[in-house]
């Protein structure tokens, strides 16, 4: 696979993204240099694309990913991989707020920490964070798994639907309507199957699996006692 280097600098992002799309069509491996934390880089990339950002990126990098393999060699701003359908995104550093927001499928792997609301309203796929996930991560996650190896911030897994939040470290506080359960061996095996390709399996972990307590699912706004839960 031949390689093409695309320079960002102060160029218009639309122009850079058009060049990236052309390189995808030509089946080239893409290296994006001089990224300068610019926003909206590599949005809507197609299946089979292989792209590496040599530096930090801004907001929405890899958003609407449709099957590409994306590597960000430093930090990523807000909304990394937002609404992605499939593919892989690896962030070598830190990912800002709302990483993987509303994603439908695929895997996001963050080697550092992830900011608040990681996986907010996600509808499928997996987010693996080697560090800590921020405030209110997993908020209203409809499906999919958020797996945090380093811990979780305040209000973790608030108002979950059918999503799951797995934390191996400390949890600062739980959100509303969360149930913490002891996972079964089969469930741990499922998580290990996600971690295995990333070389992150460790059998000594003490997992806490968070799922919905389901009280909010049938919330009756006229019930004063129910409000006290919040």
């Amino acid at each position, binding site marked *: 696979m031949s390689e093409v280097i695309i320079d960002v600098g102060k160029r218009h992002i639309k122009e850079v993204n058009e060049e990236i799309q052309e390189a995808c069509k030509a089946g080239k491996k893409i290296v994006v240099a001089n990224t300068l*934390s610019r*926003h909206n880089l590599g949005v809507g990339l197609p299946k089979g694309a292989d792209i590496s950002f040599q*530096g930090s990126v*801004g907001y929405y990098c890899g958003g609407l990913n449709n099957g590409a393999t994306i590597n960000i060699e430093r930090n990523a*701003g807000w909304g990394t991989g937002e609404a992605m359908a499939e593919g892989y995104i690896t962030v070598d550093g830190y990912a*800002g*707020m709302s990483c993987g927001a509303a994603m439908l499928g695929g895997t996001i792997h963050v080697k550092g920490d992830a*900011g608040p609301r990681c996986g907010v309203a996600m509808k499928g796929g997996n987010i693996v964070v080697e560090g800590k996930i921020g*405030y209110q991560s997993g908020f209203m996650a409809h499906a999919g798994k958020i797996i945090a190896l380093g811990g979780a*911030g305040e209000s973790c897994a608030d108002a979950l639907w059918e999503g799951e939040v797995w934390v191996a470290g400390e949890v600062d506080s739980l959100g509303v309507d969360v149930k913490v359960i002891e996972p079964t061996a089969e469930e741990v095996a499922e998580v290990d199957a996600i971690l295995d390709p990333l070389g992150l399996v460790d059998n000594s972990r003490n997992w806490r699996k968070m799922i919905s307590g389901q009280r909010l699912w049938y919330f009756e706004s006229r019930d004063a006692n129910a409000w006290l839960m919040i």
Partner: protein
Amino acid sequence: MCGIAGRILQAPGKVGRDLVELMDAQEHRGADSTGFAIYGIPIDEGYILRGMGFNKVNLDKDMAEFHAILKEHDSDFLEEPKFIQDDNAHYCTRMVIKDPKDLSRWVMDIDNISDRFEVQSCGRSLEIVKDIGSSEEVAQKHGVRDMIGTHGLGHARLATESSVLPNASHPFWARPFSDVAIVHNGQITDYYTWRDKLMRQGYRFLTYNDSELIAIWISDQMKQGLTMQQALEKSISSIDGVFTYMIAQPNGIGFAKDRFAMKPLVTIQENGELAAATEEQAVRRVISEEADVINYDGPSMMKIWGVGNKKVAA
């Protein structure tokens, strides 16, 4: 969705130029108006004053009235007013005045002509320059790139809570405290509750901008004896809304952030210097190498950075 920025240099330098760059990179966050609070080399005598008259037709009348009020407070011009005008109706002015006998009383009296004229900053080193238009437009009109200083704040405004008016631009001066300025990104949801309380205490609001409320709220807390750090901490639990604001004083810059962690702040701190902004790509404009950034992403966060590596008293 406004954009804010802060910059601290090790020694007096082109802080105006850096703030213009920080705000130019964030112009997409709000191009209604742009403003800068720049802390220059402090003057030994008097206050540097920046003001705005709302209609240049009244310039002579405004200045005559302004001068009369100055005299009533045992003050006068140490440096004659200079005026900046363009096609817009308003005009801006810069002058140096002798210390009034009582700064707060003088400010109160000057505010009585506020339907025509507004003092926008007053300090030994602080100068607030703000106007409608983009960072580049405001910089060119007011010569911001050439302003020398140690630190400062910047703001790009997307008007959400009040009109697009030159005086509703940020930064806001924490009147009547000299040399205190704030910039804010967010919405204060209990604005009218606090405004009402503060107005009953005698504070005067010159706009309906919720950021002005933070400046006056901070003034009130400091008047009650709180330090900058204490006031920042208290604001997080007292003021309702989603916000990240930065406050500057001659000895440093601080920030506070709401309990919901909705408004970002990213910094690079290197060699006693600071570049802070709403977006990482903005701080890269002034510190372009891949230095590590610190994301202040969590809820209820606050921090103060001192100028020249000095600690600010807690």
